[in-house]
């Protein structure tokens, strides 16, 4: 438990049609890097989506700096960004259109960080390519370059190292280390691979009360 918690989850409940995932889950997440761990099927991605406002809890509450994920849904989602999913859901857009759309919905993004991310990931020249035509790694890099540039308070990154080349993994680890040191937002990251950067907090769903 953390006194300067940015994200407060209280008595969270969530059920799929076929099974229950969370019941009475309590969490406090502080600014910095939280490494979310757990076996396959424990609900890591589901928890990230719940924290990002993409899924609605069936019980309990999630608050981000006082904003309730259900009551203040739009403001909540404006301050959080979920970076995950391997298939683009806006697959008719070109890469530049996809980026522009997100930048217009999340004002105040750091354009120099975005450009550095695109260049560093070597995806600076795919602007006119459809996101549906990108490889798994390219799409992941695109999402990460955007995510790291956004001025959000809660950044949710699902399995960022899957499909990335060695150089991109290095770049991402460096960027995460900088953000962890700055403690300017709460980053929740899932990964089955060990992190080079020391996380602020490790949250293991295998031993967490409230995880079914």
């Amino acid at each position: 438990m953390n006194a300067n918690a940015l994200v407060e989850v209280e008595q969270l409940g969530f059920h799929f049609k076929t099974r229950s995932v969370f019941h009475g889950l309590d969490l406090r997440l502080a600014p910095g890097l939280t490494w979310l761990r757990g076996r396959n099927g424990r609900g890591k991605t589901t928890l990230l989506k719940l924290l990002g406002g993409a899924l609605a809890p069936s019980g309990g509450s999630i608050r981000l700096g006082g904003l309730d994920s259900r009551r203040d849904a739009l403001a909540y989602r404006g301050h959080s960004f979920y970076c995950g999913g391997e298939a683009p859901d806006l697959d008719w857009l070109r890469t530049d259109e996809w980026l522009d759309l997100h930048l217009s919905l999340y004002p105040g993004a750091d354009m120099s960080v975005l450009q550095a991310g695109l260049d560093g990931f070597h995806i600076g020249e795919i602007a006119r390519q459809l996101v549906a035509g990108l490889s798994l790694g390219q799409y992941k890099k695109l999402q990460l370059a955007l995510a790291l540039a956004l001025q959000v308070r809660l950044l949710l990154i699902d399995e960022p190292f899957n499909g990335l080349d060695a150089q991109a993994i290095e770049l991402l680890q460096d960027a995460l280390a900088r953000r962890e040191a700055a403690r300017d937002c709460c980053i929740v990251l899932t990964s089955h691979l060990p992190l080079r950067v020391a996380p602020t907090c490790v949250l293991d769903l295998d031993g967490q009360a409230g995880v079914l």
Partner: protein
Amino acid sequence: MIHAYTRFRITLTLKSLAQLVARLRSSGEIVLLALGPAILGLLGCVALPPMFAASYPLFPALGLLLLHAALMTLPAALLLPRLLPAQVRAWLYPLPVPSGLLLRTSMLVAGLLVAPLALAYIGSLAIWMAQGQRPDWLLPGRAIGATLLSLLLTWAATSGLLYRAALLPPAPRMRTLQPGAATYAPHPRPGWPMLWYRLFWLPLWRRGSLAGPRQALLLAGTLIAIALWMAGPALLPKVGGAVLASVLLVLLVHEADDALRTQLARLQTATARLPLDPRVLGRRARLSLLAGLALPPSLLTVAGLAAQAWGHPAGRLYLALAWSVAPLLVMTPSFTPRGRMGLVAFSIMLLCAIGSKV
């Protein structure tokens, strides 16, 4: 015993056709209801071209039959991306399928596609042959032979198309890359026009979507039909113009509304994680669609004023209904598909009935 590859291709074809039928079902039902007798009449005449070709000497007749078979193969050629989707071709292509099996499978699948045409030919031939007074040019033996030859040519051409499609490697995925790699220059433009363009306009035209071209064709057809109706050329009876304009107007609204509802459903997952209110998004998208759909009634109003069509009560009633169709269909919440089809069919019949009095 059917080979597993052949069985798969048959299942794939039947599923693709079922999907297509489901996609066109509501529009098809409307067209059948409104233009049923005309379509039955057209079906009765489906074997007319080969029968007529048979009345010519051998070589011109063969040329006409080849042309007719090519035209009859066109639907299969247009449906090819659905019958053998690119993502299926991508993993089907490397399979070690002998060319003989590929050819037999293609012929069998082509047979499935051509079977409804064969039934239509049988019906059409029966109608023409059973007539007490046949036209002079109709020579029964040659007409039947020519129709059969046209059908066989269509089957062979369709088989060839399917065989070639299964034999060739799929087009590379990276064809979406525009000429010359381009660096990203940010142009984030907040506001509704940008959102509408990216979330509702672009999907109509990209990734093989036919919704945009279909709506463009329907819009052009509706505007031309309205202009023709109001201009009243000697070749087109006034009632014909009214019926054509009414049917196209309602089909345009139905098609555009259907595409919007589909896109809103498609956006649900994406918008759930973005700072976008789906209810506000839906409301604004509907209002934007209504603004676009005001074009045909606007032309109708202006052209009708010029043609002095709105002087009578029937004319004014038609105009009011023409303006009401889009708000009625777009703002009505989704209910059962059949209920929606009923509403669309009722709108068509009402407009046709009143339009014929204008």
